[in-house]
């Protein structure tokens, strides 16, 4: 079996269908180096977070090892000011590329607050989502809202909703409803599928009938791009084109990034029970960071010294984030009651008072 990332690609997205200056321009060398910087930082942070869990600093974590190119490429393709990201529980790399405060992001893995402590409105990065497929419809609704807003404002291109989902999530009814709603509403949303080969222990072959989520798009009259998800430049380009298409009001697009979950599903998972190290080697293919390093060397825009410097910097950065995570304190129990409603109720107020009396003895 060949590396999954190299699976036959599919591209039904009309090229140049939408004028998109940014997407047309191939990334210049500064941009290329910046992409590597992000990849290196994300890799470092992901590896560190796994270590934090082993050290007991955080109770659990969902590694994205191997998906760095897919996540950094996607995150780098959207506009922090006009677009909105709807992540799952594994989009640490997108959060990083999108500029989310990573200590606030990691707070969810420290069991401090389910949605994370970052501000979704300021960051345009929706709260951490633990329901598989749960937020895909939200992206469609949010995106349709941009269309409705545009009806009143000048047509300066639409804000785009970027919905993240996995191969497993594609089985959920909500994802079908989301794709159908989006196509009917012509909503500016991009369904970004990270097909990483696994849903916990279930391989894509037993999950996605037909073998490709991108191939489903045609059934909704939607364009789709299936791309090598371990090639950061390919992902960046494909996502930019998809976003430009949606931004131009031409409707939703599916991007399926073929990648591989090189690590366990989560720190409590044991992949040895359902796949061998050989499988991992063959299916995983070449490490996306190694690939991009070779690419940069080939292009002559970077050298070993650059990589060493960036990687060391990433290590320091991860250590700083660790300090921040260590310093994170639990939220007061009173916040259980504070955020249930915008306007609390007498019943809830009474429960909060009783909790204070019995648990805080005040």
């Amino acid at each position, binding site marked *: 079996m060949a590396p999954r990332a190299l699976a036959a690609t599919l591209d039904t997205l009309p090229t140049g269908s939408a004028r998109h200056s940014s997407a047309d321009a191939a990334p210049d060398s500064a941009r290329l180096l910046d992409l590597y910087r992000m990849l290196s930082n994300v890799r470092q942070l992901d590896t560190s977070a796994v270590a934090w869990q082993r050290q007991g600093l955080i109770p659990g974590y969902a590694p994205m090892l191997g998906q760095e190119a897919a996540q950094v490429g996607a995150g780098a393709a959207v506009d922090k000011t006009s677009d909105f990201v709807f992540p799952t529980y594994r989009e640490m790399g997108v959060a990083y590329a999108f500029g989310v405060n990573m200590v606030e992001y990691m707070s969810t893995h420290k069991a401090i607050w389910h949605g994370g402590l970052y501000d979704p409105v300021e960051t345009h990065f929706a709260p951490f989502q633990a329901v598989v497929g749960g937020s895909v419809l939200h992206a*469609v609704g949010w995106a349709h*809202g941009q269309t409705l807003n545009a009806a009143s404002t000048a047509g300066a291109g639409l804000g785009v909703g970027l919905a993240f989902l996995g191969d497993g999530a594609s089985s959920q009814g909500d994802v079908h*409803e989301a794709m159908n709603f989006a196509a009917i509403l012509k909503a500016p949303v991009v369904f970004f599928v990270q097909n990483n080969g696994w849903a916990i222990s279930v391989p894509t072959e037993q999950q996605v009938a037909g073998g490709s989520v991108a191939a489903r798009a045609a059934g909704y009259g939607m364009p789709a791009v299936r791309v090598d998800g371990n090639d950061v430049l390919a992902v960046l380009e494909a996502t930019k084109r998809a976003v430009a298409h949606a931004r131009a009001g031409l409707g939703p697009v599916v991007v399926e990034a073929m990648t591989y979950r090189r690590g366990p599903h989560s720190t409590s998972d044991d992949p040895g029970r359902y796949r061998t190290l050989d499988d991992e080697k063959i299916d995983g293919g070449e490490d996306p960071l190694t690939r991009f390093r070779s690419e940069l060397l080939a292009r002559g825009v970077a050298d070993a010294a650059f990589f060493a410097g960036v990687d060391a910097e990433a290590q320091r950065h991860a250590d700083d984030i660790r300090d921040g995570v260590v310093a994170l304190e639990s939220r007061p129990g009173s916040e259980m009651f504070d955020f249930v409603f915008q306007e609390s109720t007498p019943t809830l107020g009474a429960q909060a008072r009783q909790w204070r009396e019995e648990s805080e003895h005040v």
Partner: protein
Amino acid sequence: MSDTLEFVTEAATIPLVQLSMQQAINRALAEILDADDRALVFGEDVGVLGGVFRVTDGLQQRFGANRVFDTPLAESGILGTAIGLAMAGFHPIPEVQFDGFAYPAVNQIITQLARMNYRSRGRLPMPVTLRVPSFGGIRAPEHHGESLESLFAHVPGLKVVSPANPQQAYHLLKHAASMPDPVIFMEPKARYWNKGEVNLADNEGSFLEGSVIARPGKHATLIAWGAMVSRCLQVAELAAEDGIELEVLDLRWLKPIDEAGLAASVSRTRRAIVVHEGPHTAGLGAEVAALVSQSCFDSLRAPVERVTGFDVPYPSGDLEDEYIPNIDRILFGVQRVLEYRRG
């Protein structure tokens, strides 16, 4: 916070009109859409058709297909889209066509709509008013006569209200749509066509909160909501002929429940019967009975009676009147609390 209906008619020189509940809700929706340009009405067949009950009649013509639109046939899709629209700053007022078809949306309602404000630490409020034509009594096909109030009331993050007459439907819907939190608005479809007096003048907030005494009495309190309120009023009429004065408390807000209003009434009457259409076990009547049994422990002269639907699937039209609490069954419940003697 309990208020008597007299309160409404007291105030003089205020615009009174006769409307059916269906007309009252339609009028409220029109006023909401008119006053709030972020408000959106959508669902299955709510646009061109104006809803299978004509509750949204004329709204698309008047406010356009951007503000009032038909969706594909998928309730989870309707709720999930509403959540995203709320995140984009809109005030969605979606409809699920019938109570029984809220079930496909339960995951989005419970894990997303009810929690987004909490999950986002108050940064993503969900000012969503979900209209659900509810309860039975119209001899409809399966799943068109369900009572979901106890399911919804159990969900942290939701508020739940059900109007008993056109006056309340008009004002409670406008009030719900003005709230920054998700509200499930349960419309007693069996009462859509009954006309009643509607006072269009704004009432101060207090009128919109808590329960109301639909009929004062002193021998026992009948506690009900939705379509059961008018039935309890009938029962009170009949009982009055035998000199039994039943108080009828219209709970209205099924979450939060007006605990003070319940306690005030039952501590006076010292006997209570809670009446609802939904199945008995773990129905909202259990919560009401538990609250009253606690708050009125010293004054209660008999166990709180629950006259409810049975623990059976909502039956076909022919058996509807056997399932929904009817006047006889409610009277038997009244008799039990009145005749109860400590053993």
